[in-house]
């Protein structure tokens, strides 16, 4: 155990800090999804040029071209948080599509899409889930029928966040209907303004439409838009899902929430008494603090292991399940601490934190379900982590 950074890394930290200090005046508002504002696009370009975004993407594809170095990535994240500087753009294009193309895309696809995606000029959405294909994603029924050099795509996707503002979609389509279910899927890229695409906002319990349904009627897409070859979509998608699960369950997000709750409990009073003096709430706070610390240190352990190749057993498999659950429990606790104030919403008088805690409590339930439900995560932990047998296949009937 050595939790200090070497001089070279401390140097990198000093440089990062100086960069942020120098550009403090041009910090844009944090990116909240959808189409980025003009100042965010300028910021993103500056971050890529200086190695604070798209850091390890090769220069020829529009990145900064640095060697992967997890410690430097961590230092960047720490310093941006410390300076309250907005991180570069995120979203499914940058976090999922770009790494997937770099891994399995053709040279032409990489050259055409990666750089503008990183710069925020192409916004992507992900067409995976369908009404009948959730946890059993490979049973998806959106079909691409061969028609000359094209596919004619028909079907429906759901849970498509950003679809209303996206330029492009990366979409799983059944193109080889005669093959077994996992072998018949292709991963296809196409513009969202292609004729035959209809986007319907899907309003959730938060009151906002964070997702959409997308309908395809005879959508014509060239076959050359397939990534990784016809019928290879399942393995291409798995490469992408790997990137998504890393995004969910971030322990630093949990710590940010915990610190906000500590401030809340110090500030709020009930009948003149500080909430911190309520023994029951204080005990719940301490329980959550213990869990947040455990997940943070667990994250440090995984970080080191990804550099050294140390075996962490099932350490990685538990992060999505535990991290999402912890974030949700933090939101639930904040609501309990606020009591009746905790159920205020929208633009109500007396509203606390702009209604963040209720919104988080409701939205985060979706994160527990999305990206592989908690139950699917437990199957993965039990089967891949502990070596328990897979579910026997149900008799087809």
């Amino acid at each position, binding site marked *: 155990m050595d939790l200090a950074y070497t001089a070279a890394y401390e140097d990198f930290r000093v440089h990062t800090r100086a960069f942020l200090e120098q550009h403090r005046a041009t910090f844009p508002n944090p990116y909240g999804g959808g189409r980025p504002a003009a100042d965010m696009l300028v910021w993103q370009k500056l971050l890529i040029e200086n190695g604070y975004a798209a850091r390890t993407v090769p220069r020829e594809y529009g990145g900064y071209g640095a060697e992967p170095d997890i410690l430097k990535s961590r230092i960047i994240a720490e310093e941006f948080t410390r300076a309250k500087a907005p991180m570069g753009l995120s979203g499914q294009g940058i976090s999922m599509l770009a790494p997937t193309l770099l891994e399995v895309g053709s040279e032409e696809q990489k050259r055409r899409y990666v750089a503008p995606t990183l710069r925020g000029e192409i916004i992507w959405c992900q067409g995976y889930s369908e009404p009948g294909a959730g946890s059993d994603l490979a049973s998806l029924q959106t079909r691409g029928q061969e028609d000359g050099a094209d596919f004619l795509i028909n079907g429906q996707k759901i849970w498509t966040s950003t679809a209303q503002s996206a330029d492009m979609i990366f979409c799983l389509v059944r193109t080889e209907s005669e093959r077994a279910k996992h072998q018949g899927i292709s991963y296809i890229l196409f513009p969202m303004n292609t004729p035959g695409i209809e986007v319907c906002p899907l309003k959730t319990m938060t009151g906002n439409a964070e997702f959409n349904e997308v309908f395809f009627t005879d959508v014509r897409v060239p076959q050359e838009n397939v990534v990784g070859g016809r019928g290879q979509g399942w393995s291409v998608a798995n490469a992408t899902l790997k990137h998504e699960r890393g995004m969910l369950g971030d322990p630093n997000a949990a710590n940010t929430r915990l610190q906000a709750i500590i401030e809340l409990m110090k500030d709020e009073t009930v009948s003149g008494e500080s909430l911190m003096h309520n023994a029951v709430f204080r005990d719940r706070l301490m329980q959550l603090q*213990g869990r947040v610390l455990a997940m943070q240190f667990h994250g440090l352990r995984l970080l080191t292991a990804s550099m050294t190749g140390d075996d962490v057993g099932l350490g990685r498999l538990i992060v999505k399940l535990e991290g999402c659950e912890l974030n949700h429990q933090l939101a639930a606790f904040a609501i309990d601490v606020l009591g009746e104030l905790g159920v205020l919403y929208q633009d109500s008088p007396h509203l606390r934190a702009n209604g963040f805690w209720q919104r988080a409590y409701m939205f985060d339930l979706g994160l527990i379900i999305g990206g592989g439900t908690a139950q699917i995560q437990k199957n993965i932990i039990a089967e891949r982590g502990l070596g328990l047998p897979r579910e026997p296949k149900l008799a087809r009937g």
Partner: protein
Amino acid sequence: MEFALSSDQKMLQDSVTRTLARLCPLDRVRKAAEAKTYAQDVWQGLVELGIPGLLIPEKFGGVGLKLLDAALVAEALGHHVSPVPFIASCVMAPLALLRAASPAQQAKWLPRLASGEITIGVAISEQVAGAREGAGIAAQSERLNGKAIFALDFAQATLFIVADQDGKLHLVDATAPGVHKTTLTTIDLTRSIGELHVQNVESEPLAHGDGLIAMRDAGWIMLAADTLGASWQMIEKSVTYAQERKQFDRVIGSFQAVKHLCAEMAAELEPGRALIWYAAHAFDDIPSDASLTAAHAKAYLSEVGRFVARTSTEVHGGIGITDLLGLHYWFKRIGLNRQLLGGPERVRHLAAQMQGFI
């Protein structure tokens, strides 16, 4: 930045685990527990590895390692429910002597402790967990009076380190006139717990520093690590059983109801390992974080340990609660660890105090 065990630490873990696998199978645990004694041959094996002197500097005949090394040993002992003294005699007592004793006291006791010739019990529960039944030891005019319940590594201890009501530490010779010892029987027969009465007993104070806090923090981390090892053993046993036991013509481990219980145990438990590593590292190298993370390690493992102990027993079905299977040795060890030096509610209360929340 490296958050990982060193190769030396992995070797230590390996050699302790191999020794315990050889000397301390369930039959041996059962024999010692039923006789309510330590397993002397297991203890001898640990002595040969230098475990009693793990934290004692080389100039006193020890190995001079750190608390993280001791946590790895505690984890292995919990994994094998080993009936040997450790937490008090090999960790808390030497730390108290190193931090609070005079050079003469250190020279007198540390070499004998390091060689395994003597063991030392620790009676500080009233000052950490709070006093039950009005227990406590008063120190006046170099004389000790009162009682301490829940003294650790009690049997055969040559000496006790006792905390008085002001938190000051004293050495008490187990055979001194006025010392009365009563063994307490807990659910866990793999560890020795007792009650110490002192009547006008001559005190030999440990005069310097914050020995009590160091003992408490180290004790919390060791109990947490013991529970980590015991809990992982219970998960491993559950998984093995679920892969063999058949009902409805299927191994029960193929049912999601059973599979998910196993996944939940592992998912809740594993982050506790990193928490223990950090707390143990902080004990020696990041003093400002030491007490808080030690408290959280103790509380976290107490809660997850209880969940694992009951869930693992349930995965085993009816056989899980039998004496024959012996799973109960781990169940009970985890149950004892939870309460020693303060249950989780008490420890979290102290954690809140440390941060100035009350």
